[in-house]
C-alpha cells in the first residue's frame, strides 16, 4: 500500500538552483534557513512530515517521479529538523556524503513556486 510520508510546497527558488540542477543536484531548505543558503536552495514549507525518504520510496517533484536508491546517515535529521535535503540524480546505490539522497539518473525538473515535493512509501 502506498502512503505519503512527506509532503511540502515550494515557496521560493534561488538564482543558482538551475546551475545545481544541471549537475544533477537539488538542495532544499525550510523557510527559517539563513539567507546565504537561499541563493542555491529551493525553499519549501512542509505539510506532512511523518518521516524522511528511505530506499525504495518514490520522490515526486512536480510531475516527475524518482525512485530512491540510497539515503545517507544524516538525511532524516536534516530533513525533519531543518527541512534540508540534498537530492542527487546520480543513479548511485551508495551515498557519497552523509546528507545525500540518491535517485535515478534522470533529468531534474525546473521547479516553480507552488510545486510539490512528495515522498511516497510503498511498504
Amino acid at each position, binding site marked *: 500500500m502506498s502512503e505519503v510520508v512527506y509532503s511540502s510546497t515550494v515557496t521560493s527558488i534561488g538564482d543558482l538552483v538551475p546551475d545545481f540542477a544541471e549537475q544533477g543536484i537539488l538542495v532544499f531548505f525550510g523557510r527559517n534557513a539563513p539567507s546565504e*543558503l537561499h541563493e542555491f536552495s529551493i525553499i519549501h514549507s512542509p505539510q506532512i512530515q511523518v518521516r524522511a525518504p528511505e530506499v525504495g520510496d518514490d520522490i515526486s517533484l512536480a510531475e516527475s517521479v524518482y525512485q530512491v536508491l540510497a539515503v545517507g546517515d544524516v538525511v532524516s535529521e*536534516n530533513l525533519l529538523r531543518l527541512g534540508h535535503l540534498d537530492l542527487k540524480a546520480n543513479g548511485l546505490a551508495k551515498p557519497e*556524503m552523509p546528507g545525500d539522497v540518491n535517485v535515478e539518473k534522470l533529468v531534474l525538473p525546473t521547479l516553480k513556486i507552488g510545486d510539490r515535493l512528495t515522498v511516497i512509501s510503498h511498504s
Partner: protein
Amino acid sequence: MSSYKSVVISAGKGGWGGPLTITPTESRPYIYSVTGGGIHPVAARIAELTGGVPFDGFKSSVAFDKIAVAVIDCGGTARVGVYPMKKVPTVDVHATSPAGPLAMFITADLFVSGVKPDDVKAK
C-alpha cells in the same frame, strides 16, 4: 582592548582539513552555529574558550564579515561550501571531505571536519 582568546580546532576521527586557529575580534565576534536544534555543543565550546558570541543562524542572520567561525552540521553538499566561499572559517561536525558543486572553495586553511567538542583546544 580585547579580551578574546584563541582556540585551535583540529579534524576529528575521519575528518578533513585544518587545524584552524580561531580568534574572535571586536569586528568579528560571532560564533555562528548553522545547525539544527540551537547552538551546537562545538559552537558552545568555541564560544566558551574564546569569549566569542554564540549565534543561531536558523533564528536570525548576521553579515559574513562579522563571523569569526561558522559551525555547520552539513552532510557534504551545500553548507559545506557556502562559508568557505565567503572566506569564513568553517567547522563541520560531520566528517566530510571537499565535494559537491562548491568543492573548489573548501580548503584546509578554511575548513575542518569531523569536529567534536574535545577537538577544540585553548591555544
